[in-house]
């Protein structure tokens, strides 16, 4: 996959970004912003999106939770070239906002949207609606939205994608996926009809996911990464210790990922994310991410299912850990307890302290017996 880095001055709208690496300073609000040479220009890095040949900035823009069009406009002015939305986001309101925000910049950027419709006719009808709301004749990439396995992708869905391509309504076609990716990506690579995959990918995932990404890229598919901050934008701990930028850089620096679509809701986040381009992942970044992994590793179940049937007392370990996450992770104690109390009486009464040694070994290092004991203390 080709990769280039170029410098660009961003002053078409009288704007200048603060010096890279400096603290957040929104000096760009002034219409009398200093001349280009007064502020260090930002570095944009580009990659080619697989066989599409599209040149995209390695940091794109996930528009889903963006409320204000000014943030999208500014990103486009700054040279971000990839914008992602979906028909289903806010029942179409997001597409409408993105279309209005991009305005005359539309043809200078790569714009993607998605369909959740379950059949060919529905998909093609949704595409027409998307084009109308986005105020454009075509989208650059049209995805099947959120598929978790090859069985979710029927032949008539692929046919709809191909029809859209033939009609010129979608230049390229792909699939977005949040789950089952390690099976789905190799299948897509083998299928050979998809141009792009939009996959969840971040530093906290197991190495198998990296292999799936590599397989997709090797087959010529452009790889777009989402969930790149591992929930970081809503994760106060990650935000507080500055690891969000490191998390984004981790994905951006992966050679087989062409671009990323972090959610961006304000100018500060935009400015922060731009710093991920043109900056290698440093030793400090690695330390930050390692520390964060260490923080979450003993606590949160990855739902891989490998502990199933290994508890000597027959406890459904993954389920109980999930109930604990409701309480500890989301502050939903009542729901966690409700679910725990739905277990059979023998499982509610079981205590991990009755076992001399825990037979459950989590491949991700979750301290199972400690977490199970906490759930029993909290809920039972």
């Amino acid at each position: 996959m080709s990769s280039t880095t170029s410098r660009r001055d961003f002053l078409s709208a009288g704007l200048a970004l603060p010096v890279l690496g400096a603290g957040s300073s929104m000096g760009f609000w002034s219409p009398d912003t200093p001349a280009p040479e007064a502020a260090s220009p930002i570095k944009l890095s580009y990659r080619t999106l697989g066989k599409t040949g599209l040149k995209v900035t390695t940091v794109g823009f996930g528009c889903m939770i963006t409320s204000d069009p000014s943030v999208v406009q500014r990103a486009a002015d700054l040279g971000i070239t990839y914008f992602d939305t979906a028909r289903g986001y806010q029942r179409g309101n997001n597409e409408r906002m993105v279309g209005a925000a991009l305005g005359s910049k539309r043809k200078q950027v790569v714009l993607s949207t998605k369909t959740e419709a379950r059949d060919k006719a529905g998909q093609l009808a949704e595409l027409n609606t998307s084009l109308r709301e986005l105020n454009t004749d075509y989208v650059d990439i049209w995805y099947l939205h959120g598929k978790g396995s090859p069985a979710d992708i029927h032949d008539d869905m692929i046919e709809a994608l191909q029809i859209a391509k033939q009609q010129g309504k979608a230049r390229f076609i792909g699939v977005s996926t949040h789950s089952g990716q390690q099976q789905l990506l190799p299948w897509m690579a083998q299928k050979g009809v998809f141009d792009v995959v939009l996959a969840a990918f971040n530093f906290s995932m197991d190495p198998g996911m990296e292999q799936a990404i590599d397989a997709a890229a090797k087959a010529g598919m452009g790889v777009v990464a989402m969930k790149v901050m591992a929930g970081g934008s809503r994760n106060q701990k990650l935000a507080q210790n500055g690891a969000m930028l490191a998390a984004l850089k981790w994905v951006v620096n992966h050679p087989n990922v062409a671009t990323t679509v972090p959610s961006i809701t304000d100018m500060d986040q935009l400015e922060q994310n731009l710093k991920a381009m043109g900056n290698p992942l440093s030793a400090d970044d690695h330390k930050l991410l390692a520390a964060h992994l260490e923080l979450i590793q003993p606590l949160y179940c990855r739902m891989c299912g490998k502990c199933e049937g290994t508890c000597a007392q027959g406890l459904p370990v993954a389920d109980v850990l999930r109930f604990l996450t409701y309480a500890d992770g989301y502050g939903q104690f009542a729901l966690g307890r409700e679910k725990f109390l739905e277990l059979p009486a023998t499982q509610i009464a079981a205590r991990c302290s009755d076992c001399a040694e825990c037979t459950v070994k989590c491949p991700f290092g979750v301290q199972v017996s400690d977490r199970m004991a906490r759930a029993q203390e909290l809920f039972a």
Partner: protein
Amino acid sequence: MRASQLALLPILLAAGVAHAQDYLSCQLAPGWAQSEPKRQYTADNLYDYKDGGAEGYLIYGFVRMDGITCKSGASTLAIDVSEMNDADSAYGVFTANLDPKLPIARIGMGGQIQPQSALFAKGKYYIEIVAIDPNPSGDHTAELRAFVTGMQQHLQGRDTPPEALAWFPQESLASIRLVPESVLGLKQLKRGYVATYKQGQAFIVLEASPEAAAGVLKELRSHFDGASTAPVGDEAFQAKAPYMDGICIFRKGRYLGGYANLPAPQEACSQAAKLAAKLP
């Protein structure tokens, strides 16, 4: 949690379950029958159902979703009830999903019924009903209205929209929505209502205290080079800025409010003064 509260939990939970069964029934309209088991999602697994769209719920304080699928002949209705943190959040997610071109009907705190979908918010609940019909132009307004009416009767909670909505000047008002973070794309304005007019936008953000609001205003002002003091509310500034044109932001007690995207800052302040006058 105290022991007495813990003792009450099973009763409260049981009441919640029974309640859910009341409002999630395919029998709320004649001729409809449940076609698959009820579904339930939490913040933990909403992605399984809503894919990336889940974030649009989570950002508004999503707690859980209960859903049911009903069939009548070849038509299907997917009914989903999202419980949010509070009534304002439920109204907020409704405002994010409504069709801004259509009027808001007096259904619960507010709602919209179209031929193939219905949305409304009542109390801390946000309800979506979507018709899946082999005929793309099939009109299910009557059935949707029957379900909405039935569900409203069983759902507990507030029927009146957030009072902040009444504070915005009504002339030329196009829509109002709750922005869950970064109002006007500004990190400092964490969460608030944004009203869109034929020209310009107004906003209201509530801070924890007048001191906190003053701190935010000061921080914001420092980002707008050339900002000048304006006589609105307790304190205010006006400026002209890229992407925002004329802007005027004021503080009144715990509230921050203002106008943006008007041709001149003075005009923004003139409008902002009207908004400030309506704030408590």
